[in-house]
């Protein structure tokens, strides 16, 4: 980290550079963060710059480390649901899902069909909320303020629908091992449909607004290219991975819940630059909205909570369950020794793996592109640090 003596330019070298008509520059360290509007949380980037070029950029994380993997060992399964909901604060419901699935797998609990369908609806609505948030923040970071107002207007109807069901706007705490906390209230379907139809109808306009915008294109195309090979090596998933042609989506590859019953497509692009990441993100919103529409059509009736023992106590065993979080693959490796508390849960969060690839991409880019790259790396610091 930082500049070593070898990096410092020798005077002779400076003279030589000047004689050749080049600029004699010197490396300097620029500290970005921990408080920076483009970092979505407390994130620090230790950048070594030479003129306009980023020689190195080391992401420094840990400012929000709350030790979830230790905390979950001290709590029983019912409490953990509410804890993990806070990991990635933009997609609470999606955080609860793999935990619920892991407990259900170990305990061999049956989840009623209605609960599975409603889980899909809530998870996809949460995905739309998350994606619209990054749609606006990325645009705002590039200097386009207008999308912020549009995104929040569209979010509000869906957010309100979520609030009708769960009572919360960010941390929902709604999934239980075996199903859901309770059934959805009257009027929810109408509200949800209103929200998603609005998104489907208006998204083409937003696409024109940004994707067709010349300035936006110039700032994002061929900027911050992540190769497919690197994406695999670092375990990059979600819209970022799919923007680099990593055509992976757990919902399609290993369908959980009832995802195999819907007609939708996995969006992917092949250049791996900021533009493609954003393109994938934007198009995923419509796919999610389509899933919600179909799921509301087909939701079966019945109970929303299966037969669950009063004390949730997973039998001895271990299982790795993964789900498609809005930002990528969220996996939980649950080890149980038969107690009411998990023995260990390794939480594999998407943002963590995605951000670990950041250094490789930032190396050699221009300082002016840094914000575009950071913004296109849709991450939530709470999800990185856990």
């Amino acid at each position, binding site marked *: 980290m930082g500049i070593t003596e070898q990096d410092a330019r020798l005077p002779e070298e400076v003279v030589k550079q000047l004689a050749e008509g080049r600029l004699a520059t010197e490396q300097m360290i620029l500290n970005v963060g921990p408080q920076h509007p483009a970092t979505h949380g407390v994130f620090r980037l230790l950048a070594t710059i030479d003129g306009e070029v980023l020689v190195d950029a080391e992401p420094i994380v840990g400012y929000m480390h709350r030790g979830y993997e230790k905390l979950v060992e001290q709590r029983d399964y019912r409490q953990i649901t509410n804890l993990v909901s806070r990991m990635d604060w933009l997609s609470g419901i999606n955080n609860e899902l793999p935990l619920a699935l892991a407990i259900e797998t170990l305990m061999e609990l049956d989840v009623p069909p209605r609960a599975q369908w409603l889980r899909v609806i809530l998870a996809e609505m949460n995905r739309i909320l998350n994606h619209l948030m990054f749609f606006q923040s990325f645009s705002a970071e590039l200097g386009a303020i207008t999308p912020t107002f549009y995104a929040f207007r569209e979010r509000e109807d869906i957010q309100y629908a979520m609030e009708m069901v769960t009572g919360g706007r960010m941390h929902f705490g709604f999934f239980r091992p075996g199903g859901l906390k309770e059934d959805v209230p009257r009027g929810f379907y109408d509200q949800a449909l209103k929200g998603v139809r609005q998104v489907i109808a208006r998204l083409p306009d937003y696409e024109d607004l940004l994707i067709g915008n010349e300035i936006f294109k110039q700032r994002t195309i061929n900027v911050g290219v992540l190769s497919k090979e690197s994406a695999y090596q670092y375990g990059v998933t979600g819209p970022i991975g799919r923007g680099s042609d990593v055509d992976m989506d757990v919902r399609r*590859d290993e369908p959980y819940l009832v995802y195999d019953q819907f007609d939708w497509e996995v969006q992917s692009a092949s250049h791996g630059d900021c533009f493609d990441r954003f393109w994938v993100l934007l198009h995923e919103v419509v796919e999610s909205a389509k899933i919600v529409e179909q799921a509301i059509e087909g939701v079966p009736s019945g109970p929303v909570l299966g037969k669950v023992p009063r004390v949730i106590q997973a039998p001895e065993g271990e299982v790795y369950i993964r789900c498609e979080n809005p930002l990528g693959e969220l996996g939980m490796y649950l080890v149980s020794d038969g107690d009411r508390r998990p023995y*260990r849960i390794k939480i594999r969060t998407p943002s963590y793996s995605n951000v670990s690839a950041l250094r490789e991409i930032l190396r050699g880019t221009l300082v002016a592109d840094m914000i575009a790259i950071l913004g296109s790396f849709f991450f939530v610091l709470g999800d990185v640090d856990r």
Partner: protein
Amino acid sequence: MPVVERLAPEDALARVQSALGDSVTEARLNFGQVDVTCEPANFVSVMRTLRDGEGLECKFFTFLSGIDRTAFGGTDKPEKAGGLEVLCHVYAPDRAVHVNVHVPVGLEDPVCPTITGIYAGAEWHERETAEMFGIRFEGHPNPVKLYLPEDFEGHPLRKTFRLPSRIIKDWPGAKDPEEAAAGGRG
């Protein structure tokens, strides 16, 4: 557009077994995923075979972490307790094959070779595992702490490391009438 041709778990296990041979001490299926156990000395070659081996191609690095099994089973079944292990998960995106590699390491001065040369993304995961479990990754290019401050003492995810709030007050859940005997577990 089925991009993934899912391989049956039994076939996946057979392929992993034939590719890895004697370098793993155990190979079995667990909820449709392949679980293998290997010695630290073979870890690097096992991971390389998993990544490059024909018919395996586990190109996708999911995570690397550790498990401290020393308190497994609690006070009721102490015979179930084990040691410390490194756990690495890789995935073959074209066939949807999951492989969990368990590497038992000793409790006294646990050492494991680094796999950053095979999966570049292991760098952060190994740094985190090192600080949380006190496992040294030999040959790691940047062996500094990831989350914890430099002067932090102890390894938080070890079972001997007690959560400060549990030192002050026992687990409140233990006071539930149906399970009075639930002791604190660190």
